[in-house]
């Protein structure tokens, strides 16, 4: 039996004005378990807290009920008071007789009656309270960043700058991501490479950062502070530590007809390649699908020309296991496939290109050395049509496009249009749009410059059809403002393809037990208040894996994610919330219902041996809650059909006791 003390607060006249506090403390004296009951003017004051402390000592209290303001106000205060007097802080319950009683009821009798009932409910609950202790777990002071684009790079640099070791896992042979492929960046028009490549070099030179390029995460175990991760390093058939990146091998390689993915297949590379000049790490990689030596055992030229002797045709995939305290997902995005958009003739004509291809066409390091020409015949285009929202905001065609706005297309199309008009004033540029969305610093000014200074023809309306005819592209479109059909003979059509999360994100989310929305974007722990954290503790989100983002947004989110990681890694130990779920293994069916509703992946299963009444043993699958990961929502307790799952601090029996006390 508990020995409960009841402390009724007047809160000056805030409570005492509408509630007869004396009557409340008298009435609660007779409740089961109550051995002491009093009231005082300001329970939260030093003097009030001393009354509580003294009573705990004098009456050997095992639990206390404070009838006062909202627990959101002073629960923490009274828990500290209890702890100072040697009582477990979770043996404290608050009856909210101010916000929920004296302040909303005018009549003294009604207020007093209700206050007594609320007090009884709290007493009933405390009778079933048990001392709770927060668990502690150590923190591995190392972070993992998955994805080496600008998001991953920025996050890694920020974490490393704070003094913590960081590993970047990038599936491509080099870090840099999409930004490395871009030409200029809006709204400042500085070149992407000029601002990105120095950061890539910083990453390479930072002693706290390791880069696992051409690698992927294959397994994640553990929980916040204690993740065990397996990384698969694909064989690149070149010894990374020996290769100097001189490029002799790529020149001598006889297999030169490999579509160059960095230039989106608009030119070719060799079977042994370095993706681009500023690649980090700058080492060669052999593409096993094209290398004659690997496929047929004939050739070996690259090994012969490599002065460093870095070529190793026998290299195997390598698995690395490492422990991490925090994981940042920065898996980024890709433009969607244009295969389903037949109306724009993307597959029929080489001169219908995506915006990312346009970036490469205008990039000085691109396949045309920055000269804007038609991919089909290398001629200068005189009329260019840009089509916005190809597959974005596409609710009617959900099977081929995306319902959401891809966010970056309005701005980069304005950039493309402006740069084209700037460099080639003889080229007419049309942009077809649904809306032009320019929310961002200096974004609208940028767009207006495209229209007003550079004479880009913005037409509200959608392109219905693009038909290749001779060397022209017949563009049929509608102008919604003029309310007429337009026919334009274009030389080049550029499609602002919607962007979608990288395909690697979905299996990764499963490994991390991080949740995703229906579009495969990672969901944040709270859309407003915890935008860079995943609901899974210790997993953070950076960049476009969480939703479409431009570079400034990505960088700021990357920094925010880094600061959250630093905050986590700075701790030596993590103290958990003791109000977590726990499963009674004797009653658990192992049915997985709880696991399915857990937003944090806190529940796992193990096979346990049980002694049966007939002295045999039986192995059963039972749920185990990781208290370091559980946040205590209680979803599992209701999903559990047998009632094996319960929540500490809000146990079923406690809530039922409250219900009973109220309904008596």
């Amino acid at each position, binding site marked *: 039996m508990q020995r409960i003390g009841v402390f009724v607060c007047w809160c000056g006249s805030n409570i005492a004005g509408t509630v007869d506090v004396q009557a409340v403390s008298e009435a609660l004296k007779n409740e089961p378990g109550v051995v002491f009951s009093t009231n005082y003017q300001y329970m939260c004051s030093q003097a009030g807290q001393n009354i509580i402390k003294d009573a705990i000592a004098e009456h050997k209290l095992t639990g206390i009920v404070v009838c006062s303001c*909202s*627990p*959101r*106000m002073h629960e923490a205060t009274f828990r500290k008071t209890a702890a100072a007097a040697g009582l477990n802080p979770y043996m404290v319950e608050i009856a*909210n007789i*101010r*916000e*929920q*009683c004296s*302040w*909303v*009821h*005018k*009549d003294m009798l*009604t*207020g007093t*009656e*209700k206050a007594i*009932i*609320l007090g009884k*409910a709290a007493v009933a609950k405390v009778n079933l309270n048990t001392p709770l202790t927060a668990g502690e777990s150590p923190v591995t002071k190392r972070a993992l960043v998955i994805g080496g684009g600008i998001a991953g790079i920025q996050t890694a640099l920020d974490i490393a700058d704070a003094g913590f070791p960081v590993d970047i896992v990038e599936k491509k042979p080099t870090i840099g991501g999409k930004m490395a492929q871009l030409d200029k960046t809006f709204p400042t028009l500085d070149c992407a490479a000029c601002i990105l490549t120095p950061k890539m070099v910083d990453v390479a030179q930072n002693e706290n950062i390791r880069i696992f390029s051409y690698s992927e995460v294959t397994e994640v175990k553990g929980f916040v502070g204690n993740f065990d991760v397996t990384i698969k390093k694909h064989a690149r058939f070149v010894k990374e530590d020996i290769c100097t990146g001189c490029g002799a091998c790529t020149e001598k390689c006889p297999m030169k007809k490999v579509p160059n993915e960095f230039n989106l297949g608009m030119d070719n590379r060799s079977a042994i390649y370095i993706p681009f000049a500023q690649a980090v790490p700058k080492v060669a990689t052999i593409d096993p699908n094209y290398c004659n030596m690997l496929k047929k055992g004939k050739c070996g030229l690259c090994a012969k020309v490599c002065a460093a002797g870095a070529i190793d045709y026998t290299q195997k995939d390598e698995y690395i296991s490492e422990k991490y305290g925090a994981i940042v997902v920065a898996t980024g995005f890709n433009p969607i496939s244009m295969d389903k958009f037949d109306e724009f003739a993307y597959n029929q004509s080489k001169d219908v290109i995506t915006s990312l291809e346009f970036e490469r066409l205008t990039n000085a390091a691109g396949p045309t050395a920055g000269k804007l020409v038609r991919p089909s015949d290398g001629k200068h285009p005189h009329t260019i049509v840009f089509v916005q929202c190809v597959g974005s905001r596409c609710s009617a065609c959900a099977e081929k496009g995306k319902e959401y706005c891809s966010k970056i297309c309005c701005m980069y199309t304005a950039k493309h249009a402006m740069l084209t008009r700037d460099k080639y004033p003889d080229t007419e540029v049309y942009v077809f749009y649904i809306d032009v969305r320019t929310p961002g610093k200096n974004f609208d000014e940028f767009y207006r410059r495209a229209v007003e200074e550079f004479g880009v023809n913005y037409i509200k309306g959608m392109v219905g059809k693009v038909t290749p005819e001779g060397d022209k592209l017949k563009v049929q479109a509608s102008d919604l403002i003029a309310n007429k059909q337009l026919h334009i003979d274009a030389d080049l059509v550029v499609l602002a393809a919607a962007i979608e999360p990288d395909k690697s994100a979905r299996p990764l989310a499963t490994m991390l037990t991080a*949740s995703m929305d229906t579009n495969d974007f990672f*969901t944040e*722990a*709270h*859309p407003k208040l915890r935008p860079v954290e995943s*609901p899974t503790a210790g997993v953070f989100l950076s960049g476009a894996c969480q939703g479409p983002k431009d570079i400034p947004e990505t960088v700021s989110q990357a920094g925010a994610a880094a600061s959250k990681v630093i905050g986590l890694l700075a701790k030596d130990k993590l103290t958990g919330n003791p*109000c977590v779920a726990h499963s009674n293994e004797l009653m658990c069916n192992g049915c997985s219902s709880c696991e399915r*509703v857990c*937003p944090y992946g806190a529940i796992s299963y193990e096979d346990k041996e049980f002694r049966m009444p007939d002295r045999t043993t039986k192995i059963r699958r039972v749920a185990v809650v990781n208290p370091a990961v559980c*946040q*205590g*929502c*209680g*979803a599992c*307790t*209701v*999903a559990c059909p047998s009632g094996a799952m319960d*929540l500490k601090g*809000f146990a*079923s029996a406690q*809530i*039922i006791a*409250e*219900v*009973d006390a*109220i*309904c*008596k």
Partner: protein
Amino acid sequence: MQVKEYKPLIVAFCCNWCSYAGADLAGNNRLAYPADVKIIRVPCSCRVNPMFVLRAFQRGADGVIICGCHPGDCHYTSGNYYTRRRMAALFSMLDYLGIEKERTRVEWVSAAEGAKFAATMNDFAEKVAALGENKRLEDLRCKK
């Protein structure tokens, strides 16, 4: 002629993060609602087991209301979505058994919606009061 004034007993389960805070705000702003409403704090609306709802009815509650964060705003991201499914199914079942549907409600009340909290409780209490005492669940297995 009814002599004794009938006062309904209403149990309100409120999630700690939104609705309980909404109730606090109603208090801060001195927005009155009937004292018949008694609040039980739960971490999330998804902690509310249908057994608690039935228990309240069994012990004489005339109405049970569950308040949580608005869909999409759950502190635990998905808790209220489960609440929504569970309670839709439960309430539909109670209605199927002939229990008055006005006795049960789920309402999403954010921490900023003190006025909504008070208005909701006023409205709910009024509707429950109009029904009178909750006899049906009590009598479900007691054929006269």
